[in-house]
């Protein structure tokens, strides 16, 4: 399978790289580690190496082009011919995929933090058609901790605004375009009507936002005075120990709006809280993740579709998932590209997998986000346990989320471990 050559992440403040020169030409034989091209950064000119042995093919960008970080600009293939399977259309001097948008430099929603995959635009500081300098503040975006200002990053004119204030844009999406000339037809859109352009499907993380957080952090609109950004409950060591010993659930204090951090006195309150009402589950929602260095399922799926009767990649995924669940039959719903397909999966060979009725209640939902820019999910429970697949560099992250009553803790662990093992090395598990 061809290896992608991508514009690497060059530094905190850089989201495109200018190709200075190609050191190899299309059709050349290359070895892993050979320098393929030079790219200019703030500090110096960097060489980018070939990821594998093979032939350089499908070159997408020429010397002099500015390529967004993460974009595929060439392939290293088994043969010297272009395969045409590079992930995107040729990149010109920057800009989005959408032909109806003006030409110019894309401004993307920056990566704001480990656990954040969308950012809410608080306000735009520039309007359509305004002149901007690279260091001007273009917009403010809200994070858990603070409101951050994001600079324009390039001189020019605001040619397109693709999201409105108060809208949430996914990290990495283009939300504005700055053109070198004053735009004749500036474009204003909102995300609600599909405005923000999806980035090309590449694994690299979006660069961080430039700019300083405001001096006084916004208070989160919750009852607690202090909460940690990642949802962790703050409690003293003694309080935690007592809660553990007495089998008490600190989440109930959170839900009841008790201010954190919790102390021993709060445990006393907790122990006198009424028993949970019927319909509420005693066990908390569960979320587990597995990080795999390689996503073995891609290669496996390719092989299968070429060499067997199994043509539906999603069915294969459903099969792997059902096998991990360990039941005689399971209905697996696979969501990808905003479509959901349900499969009935009996135990045994994958050839026995059939499509299920669209309204059948699935035992397990598989949410495939590997082709999106989303890297981390914390989406809460659905009606069935959900396995979400997200891509990390050349590997895979699998997140299992479910309600406490869907799966016991040990069953959740087993499900994720089994599925992760199958996704990493499908062949081994099928044998």
């Amino acid at each position: 399978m061809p290896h992608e050559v991508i514009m690497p992440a060059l530094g905190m403040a850089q989201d495109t790289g200018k190709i200075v020169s190609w050191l190899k030409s299309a059709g050349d034989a290359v070895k892993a580690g050979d320098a393929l091209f030079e790219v200019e950064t703030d500090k110096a000119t960097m060489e980018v190496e070939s990821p594998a042995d093979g032939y350089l093919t499908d070159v997408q960008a020429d010397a002099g082009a500015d390529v967004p970080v993460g974009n595929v600009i060439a392939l290293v293939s088994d043969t010297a011919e272009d395969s045409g399977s590079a992930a995107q259309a040729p990149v010109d001097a920057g800009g989005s995929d959408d032909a109806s948008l003006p030409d110019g430099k894309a401004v993307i929603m920056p990566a704001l933090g480990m656990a954040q995959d969308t950012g809410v635009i608080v306000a735009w500081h520039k309007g359509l058609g305004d002149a901007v300098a690279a260091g001007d503040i273009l917009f403010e975006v809200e994070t858990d901790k603070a409101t951050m200002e994001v600079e324009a990053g390039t001189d020019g004119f605001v040619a397109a605004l693709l999201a409105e204030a108060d809208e949430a844009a996914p990290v990495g999406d283009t939300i504005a375009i700055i053109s070198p000339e004053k735009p004749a037809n500036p474009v204003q859109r909102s995300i609600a009507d599909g405005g923000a352009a999806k980035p090309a499907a590449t694994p690299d993380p979006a660069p961080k936002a430039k700019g300083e957080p405001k001096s006084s952090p916004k208070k989160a609109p919750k009852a607690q005075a202090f909460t940690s950004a990642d949802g962790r409950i703050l409690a003293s060591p003694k309080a935690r120990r007592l809660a553990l010993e007495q089998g008490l659930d600190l989440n109930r204090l959170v839900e009841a709006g008790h201010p954190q951090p919790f102390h021993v006195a709060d445990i006393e309150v907790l122990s006198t809280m009424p028993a949970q009402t019927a319909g509420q589950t005693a066990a908390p929602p569960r979320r587990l993740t597995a990080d795999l260095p390689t996503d073995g399922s891609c290669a496996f799926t390719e092989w299968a579709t070429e060499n067997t009767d199994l043509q539906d990649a999603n069915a294969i995924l459903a099969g792997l998932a059902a096998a991990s669940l360990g039941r005689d039959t399971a209905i697996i719903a696979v969501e990808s590209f905003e479509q959901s397909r349900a499969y009935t999966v009996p135990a045994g060979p994958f050839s026995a997998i059939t499509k299920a009725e669209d309204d059948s209640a699935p035992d397990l939902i598989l949410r495939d986000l590997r082709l999106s820019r989303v890297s981390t999910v914390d989406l809460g429970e659905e009606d069935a346990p959900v396995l979400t697949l997200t891509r990390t560099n050349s590997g895979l992250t699998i997140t299992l989320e479910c309600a406490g009553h869907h799966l016991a803790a040990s069953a959740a662990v087993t499900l994720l471990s089994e599925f992760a093992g199958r996704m990493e090395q499908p062949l081994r598990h099928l044998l």
Partner: protein
Amino acid sequence: MSLQTSNMRWPEEEDMREITLSQAVNEALAEEMRRDETVFIIGEDVAEAGTPFKVLSGLVEEFGTERVVDTPISEPGFMGLAVGAAMTGTRPVVDLMFGDFIYLIMDQLCNQAAKTHYMSGGKMSAPLVLRTNMGATRRSAAQHSQSLHALVAHIPGLKVAMPSSAYEAKGLMKTAIRDNNPVVIFEDKLMYNDKAPVPEEEFLIPFGEANIKREGSDITLIATSSMVQVCEAAAEILAKEGIDAEVIDPRTIVPLDEETLIASAKKTSRVIVVDEGHQSYGITGEIAGRINEKAFYHLDAPVLRMGAMDVPVPFSPALEDITVPTPEAVAENARKLMSGEMIHAA
């Protein structure tokens, strides 16, 4: 002679005589010098002058200038001499006029005395006592007001004692002179004229035994030297507000009675450590660190350190007095810990 047990605050006799800390030290030295003729005192102005603090008055009259030896102003010299004397069969008590001068004698104290026993594989030892002082708010400015016990506590091979009253001063001094290791005793120079009940009969206070000065159940205040009185006063303030504070005096920081401190931390689940050394990189950090390690799951609040401000001691009274912990400052921190108010951000 009777040995004091850990939890007796004061000897329990009624009408016990009260003497000043200065007198207590004087008595201890006199008693030990009578008991053991190899004990001698050496330092500046120790003989007729009895030191500027007058702690040693009368000793040269009893023991003569051979055993109460005035020196030139040669701190490294007489410290080195004391090390050599201790290594060869006598037991010097070195009088270092101000604790601030400890910088001058560091090589002889920390490179020579502290390491003699170890470097010789246990064959030689340096049984000496370095008697010096600490404590600010005397308007003596930056170079005569420092509390530098943390520097020497850091060095393996030295023992460090910090008497908090006349009673401790006498008992710890006697133990120090009989100890075969180099011992540094820091007396609070502000307390020389403070009286306390001190038994007439001979007594020793063992090293490595903390003393619970006031029992309590809500919060533990660990304090050294004159900070013991500061914390006792804070405890009085807190008692009126319904907060019951326990005050513990470690008495020696090397060896440190961890067991008593940890037990108290587990009992109350809240601790403040108060010491007159600088707040940073000092005794309070060490004790707080040990409590963190050994009582973590019993803590309902972060362990607080209260030391002198990390500034050189200012001369002006308006400034000097705010650089050291006060009863009200201790009480205020105690209130915050009790209320669960986060003193530092999450």
